[in-house]
């Protein structure tokens, strides 16, 4: 198999998209970068496993485009497409919770991977928070898929987010505490996920050894 395909796990995409991405990764100048960014976002919204790879692909393409032609066309297209999806997130959630979860995952991945001079992209900070706040709403907390997504993002980028904007993190965790304590209809898995995240942050974004063994060890009877 093509080494590029292997490296970025492109085999989950359809053939047309695969060829497009392969060509882009070889030389960003040879393709329509708007099409490329759309292909990546489309796939990321369908397939949450692809998200991480999508992050790496975007990072690579941005670096290559800067090197080859000193432009930022791909990044601009990617961000603006993401912004469109973000603005339409409520409709997306109504029609497909899985797609909404993928969207959150992708936005957070981009936030994590794509930095500007080693700093997180400032325009993304509040949108990321908005997504997490949405996931902390009562109707989302009753949905295990969404709680799982929320926990995962906080593990991945919680510390970074808090560093750039601590106030909203405080508010978010108020909402999480409220949800954990007061809300009806949460599955025990959902409560477990929330409790773990609460302890994780309380420990300075590190899980103590005891907590680690509580949550993650096999229970022996």
């Amino acid at each position, binding site marked *: 198999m093509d080494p590029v395909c292997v490296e970025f796990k492109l085999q989950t995409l359809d053939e047309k998209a695969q060829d497009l991405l392969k060509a882009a990764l070889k030389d960003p100048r040879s393709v329509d970068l708007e099409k490329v960014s759309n292909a990546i976002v489309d796939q990321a919204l369908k397939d949450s496993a692809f998200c991480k790879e999508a992050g790496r692909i975007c990072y690579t393409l941005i670096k290559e485009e800067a090197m080859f032609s000193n432009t*930022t066309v791909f*990044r*601009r*297209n*990617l*961000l*603006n497409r*993401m*912004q469109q999806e973000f603005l339409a997130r*409520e409709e997306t959630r109504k029609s497909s919770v899985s797609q909404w979860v993928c969207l959150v995952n992708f936005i957070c991945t981009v936030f994590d991977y794509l930095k*500007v*001079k080693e*700093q997180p*992209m*400032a*325009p*993304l900070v*509040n949108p990321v*928070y*908005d997504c997490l*706040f*949405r996931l*902390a*709403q*009562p*109707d989302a907390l009753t949905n295990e898929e969404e709680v799982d997504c929320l926990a995962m993002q906080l593990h991945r980028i919680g510390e970074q987010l808090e560093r750039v904007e601590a*106030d*909203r993190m405080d*508010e*978010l965790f*108020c*909402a999480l505490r409220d949800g954990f304590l*007061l809300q009806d209809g949460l599955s025990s898995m959902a409560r477990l996920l929330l409790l773990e995240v609460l302890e994780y942050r309380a420990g300075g974004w590190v899980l103590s050894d005891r907590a680690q063994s509580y949550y993650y060890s096999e229970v022996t009877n």
Partner: protein
Amino acid sequence: MFSDHQTSRRITAGDARKRGSDGQLRSNGDLHPSTGQKGEHRRGDRRADSFTTPDSVRPVSRHKDWGSEVEAEELRMSKNRDALRSRRRILTAEPGSRERTVSSGSCDSRDSASPAEVETDENILSRRQKQINYGKNTLAYDRYIKEVPKHLRQPGVHPRTPNKHRKYSRRSWDQQIRMWKVKLHNWDPPTEDGDLQAVEQIDLGDFMDIELDPDEETGTHYPCMTSTEDQNDEDSGTSRKMKKTEELQKV
């Protein structure tokens, strides 16, 4: 959007806060404080179209797309980094290595070494860069940098390009440029007639790139050496130099 879901809400101490999380003053008895949205920013007309936060340089538009915002952020960071680098260069420069090209007659040579003095005015920086370019765009400079690597340069003996990021008065800067270019002549390519090299050193071109634009730094104006020729500065920095040397040779 989500207010329908908030059927029962317990009152917490947080509700007694005067301001909601969106910065708006809360009226008394407001049952849906902004934190009722769990901190979600409310879409509404109450927010200004643009605002300035402590960390932004100019008012930030709310209507920009992410692509443009990130690009603006990147540009701002580059500028800050460049200014920081210049400041660092000035701070770490050893006092002993300061060239004699630093204006001797000017009484603000001390000011130019003080750490906080970094030139950021775009007009001044571009004018200075142009003057530097005239000097670097010469055969003498090419031969000089090939002959003497940076680590072998001795202050006083070897010319050093004036640092455009330092604060200097207009006169001080122009004098430094002049001295620098005069020194560079030591590396002029040898001519066939060796006797005239001494004469070539007094090259009027070194004095000709003083421009007539208004001086914001000190308010002084130079008496102009020539009136019309200065306007042609843009494109004939080097060629005039060569022309002058030719004229001198004819003598």
